[in-house]
């Protein structure tokens, strides 16, 4: 090994080891582009409604801009502190986020059937969004300690650390986030050196838990409705569930949920179809302007893209996400240590799952779970969390030379 003494380097060479010298500007550029494109589509999604109501059409754009600003600041902080010095902070963050996830069950706002938000007046805080980021770092530390080999003890530790937040999130209930955590866990575990039987075991356990939950009253009828409804919308010949007269409150809720989900997905599909190849043009979508797709500025924002910009827009957006994934993957590959690789692997898993699930749901090939499209969907907590995540990826990239 060749050891190079600092003193032997020139000033420029010394500068080359400074973190600020190694910012991956492509990630910054892509994130900025996505956020800007998001703002455009958030505006387009609600523009007509606001104009008709005589209200300020920039209401959501303004709020999202503020969130992005906060997110940018948080991302810079997340990027600058060397990730290898974050160990103590990670522990504190993990405990803190568990506390918040517990607290939200008690003091959270009940919104759309889930107790997932703290209402802070001007801003609604969704701790689960940050929980995902914290868990990525936590799992990275656990995995990195194994040095590329995952012992049974470490596996169990990882499972334990993952199951607790998953449980709390499911109590809200927020199935989407639980699934995202599952994806993060799988991705991190894979790269951390899981054996095949680890993967098999975890998959079997997770599937078993899912089947159990599905067949008992744990997963409520309306949640089941949300998860299964998409099949009926897209594959019209599949057998729907029995539709008895809604008798209990829960059954009624399930029927409403089924109805809502079906309406959302149908609207989204029609909007994307209407977009055709080149789209109907900026602010020109009839279905979007007609308010035909509910939840369009948040979870179904992809349909706004689809109707206005057509296949050109959707394929472009998907490609940009591909490019972002590639950049994160590259950072994972060139990271200075396994910890950095694992942070980026977790980030990549989370990004990939969010994008696939959200766009897939908008195009009717995935179940409807309320998880946002990274940086494009309207949502403060989610946008800030994604920016922090990208900040951490930058962190790994920037500190890959710093000893």
């Amino acid at each position, binding site marked *: 090994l060749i050891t190079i003494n600092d003193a032997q380097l020139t000033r420029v060479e010394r500068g080359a080891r400074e973190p600020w010298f190694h910012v991956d500007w492509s990630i910054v550029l892509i994130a900025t582009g996505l956020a800007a494109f998001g703002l455009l589509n958030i505006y387009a999604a609600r523009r007509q409604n606001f104009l008709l109501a005589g209200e300020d059409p920039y209401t959501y754009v303004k709020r999202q801009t503020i969130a992005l600003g906060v997110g940018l600041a948080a991302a810079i902080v997340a990027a600058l502190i060397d990730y290898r010095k974050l160990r103590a902070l990670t522990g504190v963050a993990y405990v803190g986020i568990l506390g918040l996830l517990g607290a939200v069950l008690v003091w959270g706002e009940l919104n759309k059937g889930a107790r997932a938000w703290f209402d802070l007046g001007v801003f609604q805080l969704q701790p689960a969004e940050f929980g995902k980021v914290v868990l990525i770092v936590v799992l990275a530390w656990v995995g990195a300690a194994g040095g*590329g080999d995952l012992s049974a003890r470490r596996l169990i530790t990882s499972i334990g650390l993952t199951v607790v937040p998953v449980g709390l999130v499911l109590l809200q209930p927020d199935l989407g986030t639980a699934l995202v955590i599952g994806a993060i866990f799988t991705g991190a575990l894979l790269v951390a*050196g899981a054996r095949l039987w680890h993967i098999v075991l975890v998959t079997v356990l997770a599937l078993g838990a899912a089947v159990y939950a599905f067949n008992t009253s744990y997963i409520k009828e309306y949640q089941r409705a949300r998860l299964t409804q998409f099949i*009926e919308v897209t594959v019209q010949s599949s057998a729907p569930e029995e539709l008895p007269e809604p008798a209990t409150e829960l059954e009624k809720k399930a*029927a409403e949920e089924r109805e809502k989900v079906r309406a959302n997905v149908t609207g989204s599909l029609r909007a994307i*179809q209407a977009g055709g190849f080149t789209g109907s043009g900026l602010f020109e979508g009839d279905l979007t302007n007609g308010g035909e797709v509910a939840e369009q500025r948040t979870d179904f924002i992809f349909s706004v893209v*689809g109707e206005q910009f057509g296949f050109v827009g959707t394929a472009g957006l998907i490609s940009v996400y591909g490019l972002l*994934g590639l950049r994160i993957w590259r950072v994972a590959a060139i990271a200075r240590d396994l910890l950095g690789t694992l942070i980026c692997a977790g980030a*990549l898993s989370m990004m990939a799952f969010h994008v696939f699930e959200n766009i897939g749901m908008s195009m009717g*090939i995935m179940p409807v779970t309320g998880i946002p499209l990274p940086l494009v969907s309207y949502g403060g907590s989610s946008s800030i969390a994604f920016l922090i995540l990208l900040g951490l990826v930058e962190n790994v990239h920037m500190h890959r030379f710093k000893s």
Partner: protein
Amino acid sequence: MEVVEPGRLNGEERARLRLGILGVVSVSLLLVLLARAWYLPTTAPSDEELSAGPRLREVLVPATRGRILGRLDGQLVVLAGNRPVTVITMRRDQIDDDSDLRAQLFGRLAPILDADPEALEERFDDPEYSYLENLPLAEGVDEPTAMYLNERIDDYPGIDVATETTRVYPYGTVASHVIGYIGAIPSDPDRPAGVPLRQDAVFQSYIAQDYRPNDRVGRAGVEQSFEVELRGKPGKLVYEVNARGDVLSQRDDLSYEPVPGNDVVLTLDLRVQQLAEQALRQVVQDRRLARPAPPKTPDPTFDPNETFSVPGASAVVMDAKTGAVIAMASYPTFMPQEILDFRALSPARKAELRPDPADKVFTQRAPLVNRAVSGRYNPGSTFKLVTSWGAVAHGALDPNTRISDVADKGTYRLPIPECQGPEPGNGCLFSNAGKEFMGEMALAEALGRSSDYYFYKLGFDIGIRDDAVKLAIQNEARYLGMGRKSGVQLPEDKAGFIPDQGELDRVCATTEGLARYVDCNPYSVDDGGNARPVKSSEATLETLRSPKYPIAANVNTSIGQGLVEVTPIQLAVAYTALGTRGNVFAPTIVERVIKPSTSLDASQGELVRTFESRVVDRLAVPENVYGPLSEGLRWAVEREKGTAFQVFESFPLNRLPVAGKTGTAQDGTEKAVRDSSLFVAYAPMDDPQFTISVVVEKAGFGRQAAAPVTRLLFEGLNPDLGLCQPGPVEPVSPVPGVASPEPGPLPVGCVLTYGTEREGSTD
């Protein structure tokens, strides 16, 4: 230059490989998304397809249906009208084949429409609704529901919210059988299984006339017989559409407006009509509580507790001058609205209206049947008018001939060898009702007291005469309008049955006829001219065709029993023919068809066509027929031994002389409890203004049910008499299940005067 840390190398290669897997998975997911993003918009109809050549879509616009109007106190009132209604429909083509999708749609719609998903599915399967057209899921939907659905119409594929008009019948049961009802386009009831509706000839004939498959058409009463006038001419909207079915523009050059249907004015006087319905209800109620007197000769089958079943009754009031029907009532009743909203009815009511054939009581009551024109009854003694008329007119009887039943103690014995001797065979003896005997009498008294013996003998004597005379009764019945449809403008009008040779050959030659007329030929005559009873099981076509058949059958026919069947309106026509000295009317129940107008003034309204009074035959009535016959009818009402004397005892006959004839039709079992009560009368006697014919099924002697109703109707027709005054006719709530399908009680001062069973009286 890369700085490598010692602890790292161990896992590095592995981590890179594993990172590779993660990358491949991520890229695959993105490719799936790209594929779907390509597939979705490109499989939708393209712009070229959408704009390729305009296609035309035709939408039929039904015309506003004409109204049915009746006369009330000199004004016209609406008996059948229209009102707009919001209808939720479903396009069948979208989800016809996909029961899963349909169940899902119905499941979502049911709570909104406040209906049961199964009920919607039932409608979907209901053949009443054509599968060629949009299925109406809910009628009369309220405004909020319609708005709710309209706003979310894209979420409910195939669902439409439309405004249509629906029929309203403001007067409930009044004249319901005459008005009739509307229903689905009929199809051939004999259509073989497997032949689709669209190939059905009957159904096709409607579609060829620009009916939409789900249109409601007249299915009974004037709604049916005047369908062409009421319907108007449907309009057409022609649109240019693209391949996706989006409307591009309307072709004004090809579209045209509907022409509203014409209004139909009935001849009915609604006050009298309502009184007739109330009287029928009252008589049925009263007689259902009554029991017949025990028979003179002990009968082990007689049940002293059995009451009359009285399944139904009918009454016809005809203007004797014009043949116009003033009132036509049938009981039990229904409301036309009930048929329109059949689904909303209670199961009990449904069972009444469409009885299970196994349910004897409901099957016999059959509220939808207009008994006045489609009830085919043995006329019983009311037929003696025809027998007498035929006998005298054909020279077979001198009306002054006196015949005595004393020697035979009121029981007529067929004068054939087989029937002589101490123990004559079954079918040889014919006794007076009540097994009475009355003494020696001429024709008028025989009519007035309704001697059966007299007419048994007359029937046999005519039957053995030569060919010129032997069909005198049957021929006379035909002259008087029996055995053919009366011609009243109602689709239910029935011909009845007059059993002369040709008719019998025709009817009894069919297995259906043999089954229906249980004793299709109760007697056969051997080569020697001797009649002998034949059990119906032994009857062969050969015996039926015996040229000498009428000899024996005439004995039963002469008193209106056996195979004779007439409708109440035919009886009214026949008696009017006597009263008017020869006018045989085809009764009219629709007097005018007028252009639709908002005014209900009787003198207004542009005339489309009018129905003159129709005398289909003008018979010569010699004095030797008119005199004794009308005297006989007067005898029955006025003289103490007359069969209807009790009923008219307190009636001011001096001011309104009534001529009438009772009838008591047996059903072949000779059980008194099965006797149907008939009465036909006209008044004033010398210049009749009204003829009334009443039948009360299985209610006893003529004077016990039918004659009291007739008397009450004469009182109502002549308010000057100061007896019964018909009550006002008010619109009622026609909501099925809320309004009663029963006529109201008789007005105060209107009472039925019942006759009794009494010693020395037959009928």
